[in-house]
Structure formats: C-alpha cells, structure tokens
C-alpha cells in the first residue's frame, strides 16, 4: 500500500482513538492511580482531608474484606447454577425450533424473543410486581395450589432473581444457538440416518457438538454480565431492603463505597480487583471449555 494512503486510512480511525483514550484508557489509568492513595481526615474531620500514598494497602483491604469477598462468592455460586440452567433451556428450545419447518420456527422465535425486547430494568420492575403479594398474580395462584410462596424471603431472593434473568435471557441465547445450528451441513444427518442413528442420537452426537462454540460464547457473555449484576438486586432492594443488603453484589458494594460512604480510593481498588477477577474467570472458562474439545 502506498505510504500516503496508509496514513489516510489511519485517519479514519482517529476519532475513535481519541475517544477511546479519553473514555477508556484515561478512566482505567485514573482508577488504578486513585486506588493507590487514601484520604486521611485530619483531626475531628473538621479540617480538610489529606491524600496519602498507601501503595497496595487498599487491595489488601479488599482481599480481606469479608463483605466484598462474600458478594463475589455469592454471585459466582449463583452463576454456576443459573447460567447452565438457562443455557440448557435455550439449547433445548433451539433444537426444538431446528426440527420445525422454517415458517413455524420463525413464529415461535418471535414469541420467545419478546422478553429480550424489554429493557432489563423494566423487566425487573415487572417481575418484582408479579412476585408482590399485594398486586402480583403468583401468590394467589400459589395459594390455590396450597403453597405459601413468599418470593421476597431471604431464601427465595436468588431463585426469584434467577427466574427473572432466565426469563430475560432464554430467547436471546436461543437465537445465537439456533443460528449456529443452521450452519450444520444437512447431509450429515442423512448419512447418520442411513447408519441407523436415532434422532436423539443425532442431536447429541452431531448437533450439540456443532453448536459448542455458540454455547461457549453465550456462557462467556453470561458470566461477564453476572459478575457485574446490579440492576435486579438494586430493584429488589427498593422493595425489600431487609432481605437484599446494600452489599449484596460486588458492584453494589463499589457503588456504595464511592457514592454513599465517599471512600472513592477504596471503591477504585475494588473495581480494579473485580476487573482482574473477571479477566481470570473469563480466561479460565475459555480454557476449560476449549480444552474439552481436544
């Protein structure tokens, strides 16, 4: 490529580069910088605060902060239950759709995608009201069946949030998996049938291995989302502050440290920690899932 043309081409990316530096690199650098300091109140907090360099102290504090570590553990355990469950349903539905004629499949696909069209916060508002013993239909239905459901009880908060996330995510993940299924060469099935393979066997041995990549991708996206879960618990907290504490999830803790407690330096350290944990978790998940394939 001619030299001048190279630079003209590079010029197309300049606005993005500038924005990326300003909105991504600068904030990350700033967060890391801030995380190395702490504010010390002088005297009785009447004088101004002084900023002191403390090195990695904030990180040490974060790693031994039981509230923060518990919140991470809570979210990770929840992810281990909810994500496989949701993806399994999405996979089943995608396999079901794949067996139908394309016209019928496209009808069902649109119906199943309705939840995805609803903004996450609004979806949470709708479900919080569905769960509500005052206006929601679920409690009376439970009563009629002889159950005494309380969706806001401490033991029920995670299942309630899990159901909401599953409802919101099934359709989207199904579409990704279904798109991957469309790529399976159809003559593979014919060959398998001639060899006497049952339909279930075809699904298990041909279709599911073929959509592995899509499953890894949807799993990875779900994990990244889950470690940063904030909206749903925050809304639940709006309704039942006694069951959902303000240190329920890592992002809730970070938000509170920064905006309610005013410990900005500590909040910055916690968000860097969370980023590192997210990176490690994604890497491990990717390695584990691609290892099995070999």
């Amino acid at each position, binding site marked *: 490529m001619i030299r001048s043309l190279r630079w003209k081409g590079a010029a197309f990316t300049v606005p993005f580069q500038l924005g990326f530096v300003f909105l*991504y690199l600068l904030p990350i650098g700033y967060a890391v910088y801030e995380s190395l300091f702490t504010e010390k109140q002088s005297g009785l907090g009447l004088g101004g605060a002084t900023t002191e360099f403390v090195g990695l102290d904030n990180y040490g504090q974060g790693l031994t902060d039981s509230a923060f570590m518990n919140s991470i553990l809570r979210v990770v355990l929840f992810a281990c239950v909810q994500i496989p469950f949701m993806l399994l349903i999405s996979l089943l539905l995608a396999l079901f759709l794949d067996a139908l004629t394309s016209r019928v499949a496209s009808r069902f696909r649109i119906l199943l995608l309705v939840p995805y069209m609803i903004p996450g916060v609004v979806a949470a508002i709708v479900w919080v009201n569905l769960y509500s013993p005052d206006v929601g239909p679920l409690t009376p239905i439970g009563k009629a069946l002889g159950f005494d459901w309380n969706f806001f009880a401490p033991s029920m908060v995670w299942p309630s949030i899990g159901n909401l996330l599953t409802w919101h995510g099934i359709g989207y993940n199904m579409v990704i998996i279904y798109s991957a299924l469309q790529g399976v060469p159809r003559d593979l099935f014919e060959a398998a049938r001639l060899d006497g393979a049952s339909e279930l066997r075809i699904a298990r041995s041909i279709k599911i291995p073929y959509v592995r990549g899509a499953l890894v991708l949807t799993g990875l996206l779900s994990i990244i989302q889950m470690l940063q879960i904030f909206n749903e618990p925050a809304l639940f907290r709006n309704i039942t502050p006694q069951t959902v504490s303000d240190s329920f999830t890592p992002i809730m803790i970070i938000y509170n440290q920064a905006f309610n407690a005013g410990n900005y330096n500590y909040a910055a350290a916690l968000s860097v920690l969370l980023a590192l944990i997210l990176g490690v978790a994604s890497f491990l998940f990717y390695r584990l899932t691609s290892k099995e394939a070999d």
Partner: protein
Amino acid sequence: MVLTEHPTERPPVRSVRRLTRPDAASRGRGGQRFLLVGLILASVYSLFPVWWLIVAATKDRTALYQSNGLWFSGWHLWDNLQQVFTYQDGIFLRWTANSFLYAGVGSLGGTLIALATGYGLARFDFPGRNVIFACVVGSFLIPIALLTLPLYLLFSALGMVDTPWAMLIPCLINPFSVYLAKVYTEATVPYELLEAARIDGAGELRIFFSIVLRMMTTGGATVFLLAFVNTWNAFFLPLTVLRGKENWTLNLGLYNWTGTRLESGIDLTGLVLTGALLSIVPMAIMMVAMRRYWRSGVTLGALK
C-alpha cells in the same frame, strides 16, 4: 452477512399442514406433539408477564389490588395514561424525550464513528492497526464500574455531570459497534471498487461518504439498532452521572418511582406499571420494524 427473511405466506388448511421438517427429528405424531407442547409452554412463560402488565395498565387502584391479575376488570387505561403524563408536572414526558435524545443522537454519532473506524481497520494497512483492534476486543471484558466511577470524576472535573453530555459522549465510542462495522466492511466493500474509484480520481473522504457508506446501509442500520437498544436500556451509567430529575432517562425515573412507593407512603404502583408498559412500546416497535437487521447482528456476534 444478512439472513434472508422467510416470506410469511397465508398458512394452508390446518389438518394437512406439516409443522416439522420432512427430514427432522419428530417424524412421528408423538414427537411432533412433544415439540409443540414444549415450545408452547416456553412461549406462555415468555409472554404471560407482558400480558399481566398490559392488563394491569388498564386497571384502577382497587382493581389492581383485588381483581384477578390475568384478566381485565374495568377499563381505566386512559385515566392511567393521563396520570402518568401529568404526575410531577409531566416529568414522564421529559424522561421519554431524554431517553430518545441519548439513544438517538448518541447512537447516530457512535454509528458514524464506528463505521469510519471499521472501514479504516478493514481496508487499510497501517502501523498500529492490530493494537487498535486488540483494544476493541479487549474492552469487552472491562467491567462497567471500572469505567463509570472514574468517568464520573472526569465529567465532574469538566463540569459535565448532570448534563446530557455525560450520557452522549460515552455513547460515541462503542467498541462492539466498531467490531461489527469491521466485519461488515470486510464482507461488503470490495478492494477493487476502491481502487477503481481512486483511479477515477476520487478523494478518500469522498469515497467513504458517497460510496462506502451507501454500501454499508444494512450494516450501519444493524450497528445503530444495537447501540440504540443498549443506550435505551442503560442503567448504571445514567444512575451515576445524572443526579437531577430533569436529565433522567425513563429507566431511572421508573426506578425512582418504585422506590418512592416505599418511602413516602404514596402508592405509585399503578403509575409505575403504566409507565413501564409505555417504555416498552418504542423498543418493541423498533425491534419489530428492524428485526432483519438485528438478527444479522446477533448472528454475527455468534460467529466470533
């Protein structure tokens, strides 16, 4: 890469209609029934909350608390709408306008920047290109809190907190849009065409604005749609950088109303539900009108 839509024809007479592929899993009647029952159950699960919301928006306060939630009881939709739009001097309309402003203008600017960047990355070879692309892909892994908190400080230093700029500027830079734009350019803009235009003496800017952008209409629409949906759904960023009611988005406003129900003894449940239904409408219209585009976007995401 755009998936073709299946034309929807009138369904033939029911009794002789095949629902399953001739080559597919459930050639038996039982299998076909099993598939349909599973899909119908999943559809009911997906749709009943929306149904409940529609029904709830038509009820007055008494009916909301006392009648069967899954069926109508009286018709107070117009009263409810009037209440939503007049409560707190019509702040709901203001929030709607804000949501459209942030999502519309922000996504439009973001799409233009993303298309230019994607084109530059896909069709030019310059030093540092791979570094930029690595940044784009790497940024998918950055947690929002890590960016949002320092951004808040940055914007407050610039005096931009609580102004529309605090929402609009972050929308301009969207790494996922850049990734999509690059993939689309690779698929739709041939080198030969660019060469031919250069030989004809067209300048690079003119080539981009009058040739490339036209070829990228579909890709551009997809990028815009996904960015719009993302901004419309945003919650953590606006919660952090928008402090005053005037600049809030619909999501923030509704969130605030759900909390108010608890704090001051005012019952806003009916308002929240009607407002929630209203906030879904633009999104649903947009998704249905542009479903061809966003499907291709979702599929592309799956091809990584």
